[in-house]
């Protein structure tokens, strides 16, 4: 049983991917034992009709997900009337959470608008997925250079919102040493393993972050799903740690 908290539907803007059609992605996930996948949309990176993106995402999950895909709508708080998008995600589309891309949408975590998003998500009981990066900034397309999100302000922002549940996607590898420990010390932050690197990366992460706060995320289909899966084998983990990371923590986070 695996819960993958980090997949995306639709098309990566710069390349076709082997599993960028939802039925193929779902088949791949099922073959690998995934029972639930939290899905955002690549369209959420650049499209300005975010309401349309989120409606399509929910429809795609319902139509092709075979009960496996759970939609997380994109929110761009720099768009007019963004709070209505949050309302629709929660009330109309019954989403358990939202996904944020501050670097693609053009704001830093120090921007007060980010605090407003967190406050609204906390009020509405939405999980927030904060995506630190999509790809390696060193090898991006020259016309679409998007630096990683600067995560340094995160600790202070979350410390004052203990009821908020925030999942940091593609960020555990970017945070180093003390910064990772500081974020890991916040009990309302979870980190996925998609961009972890270095031999034994998962075991190394567990030296900085409690196992209860580590979740399985593949960043598929942009990344090979097998990367996250093999990392779980590369590190020597106890059966309890495996179960916690592969599904228990995500299920607890979701409240199921």
């Amino acid at each position, binding site marked *: 049983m695996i819960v993958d908290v980090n997949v995306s539907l639709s098309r990566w803007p710069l390349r076709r991917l082997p599993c960028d059609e939802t039925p193929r992605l779902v088949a791949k996930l099922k073959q690998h034992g995934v029972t639930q996948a939290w899905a955002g949309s690549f369209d959420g990176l650049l499209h300005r009709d975010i309401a349309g993106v989120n409606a399509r995402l929910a429809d795609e999950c319902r139509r092709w997900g075979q009960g496996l895909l759970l939609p997380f709508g994109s929110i761009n708080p720099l768009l007019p009337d963004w709070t209505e998008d949050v309302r629709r995600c929660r009330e109309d589309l019954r989403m358990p959470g939202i996904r944020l891309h501050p670097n693609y949408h053009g704001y830093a975590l120090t921007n007060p608008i980010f605090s407003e998003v967190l406050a609204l998500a906390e009020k509405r009981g939405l999980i927030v997925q904060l995506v630190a990066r999509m*790809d390696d900034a*060193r*090898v991006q397309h020259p016309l679409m250079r998007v630096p990683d999100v600067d995560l340094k302000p995160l600790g202070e922002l979350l410390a004052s919102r203990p009821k908020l549940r925030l999942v940091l996607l593609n960020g555990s590898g970017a945070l180093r040493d003390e910064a990772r420990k500081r974020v890991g010390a916040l009990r309302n932050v979870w980190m996925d393993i998609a961009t972890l690197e270095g031999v034994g990366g998962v075991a190394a992460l567990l030296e900085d972050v409690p196992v209860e706060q580590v979740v399985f995320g593949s960043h598929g289909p942009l*990344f090979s799903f097998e990367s996250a899966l093999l990392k779980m084998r590369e590190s020597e983990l106890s059966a309890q740690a495996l179960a916690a990371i592969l599904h228990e923590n995500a299920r607890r986070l979701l409240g199921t």
Partner: protein
Amino acid sequence: MTSFDGGMTRREALCRIGGSASAAAALAVGDLPAGSPAASQKTKAFIWDAHGHLGGARTPEESIARSLRYADRMGIERVVVSMGMSFVYDPTPEELRRQNDDVLRAVRFAPERVFGFVYVNPKHVAESLQEMDRCVRDGPMVGVKLWVAMHCNEPSLDPIVRRAAELKAPILQHTFLKVTGNLPGESTPADLVELARRHPDASFLCAHTGADWERGIRWIREAKNIASEISGSDPTAGMVEMAVRELGAERVIYGSDFPGRSFASQLAKVDSAELSEAARRLILGENLRRMLLPILTAKGIRA
């Protein structure tokens, strides 16, 4: 049979993944959920890793022992190691010697599993040639590593490449295509193509395939004595498929860039690719073995 760390022999390590070329197959027999499609594609194969380093430990022996423990878990039989316990962009002759001494210690620690590649610097040609003699001609190393001291299309590389060809030693040349800007001496795949054209009798591994692999693969496509080495970039889906389509499976070689990169993330590039099992076997080990076989045979190293 040699016993590796944790008391696991190589055969046991390979059996642990079901004798499969596919590392994900391991998950079907291990402690993770069954059902991987790779598990159904079992083939007899071996995995050799073309790109690794030392570091993250107090000594070369500790470093390589640690990496081999993880290699065991992933079913990797042999690894290439180059450069020493610290990264030096532009090493002096003395630093070169120290760096290569570290690798010699790693090779001596596990001679049946570790292939050493001698680190050279084309800014110090005479001393680099001496290091090649010391470590390859008269020592156990079997290849040459060039990093970022100087663009590899410079003429000063020619004597180094000629000596490598004489020794039947393949050359692992770091390449990157950074939109953020390469280091001053950091080569691109295009630089390597220039060098390879001047030396058609030498064998080259294009390390990282430029990392911006969609361009890197295209750059090296027409240079038949360059293989694409896939390490050191994110496990982006589709890389290996494109490399095989454009270069042929015989010119694509698995490497990880451990310990900085995960064996797992880099193996996943091959494991996830939609390939024939014959192609997967070539990429995971057979191509590197074929490239190294002349020098291994000359040195009497079992392979």
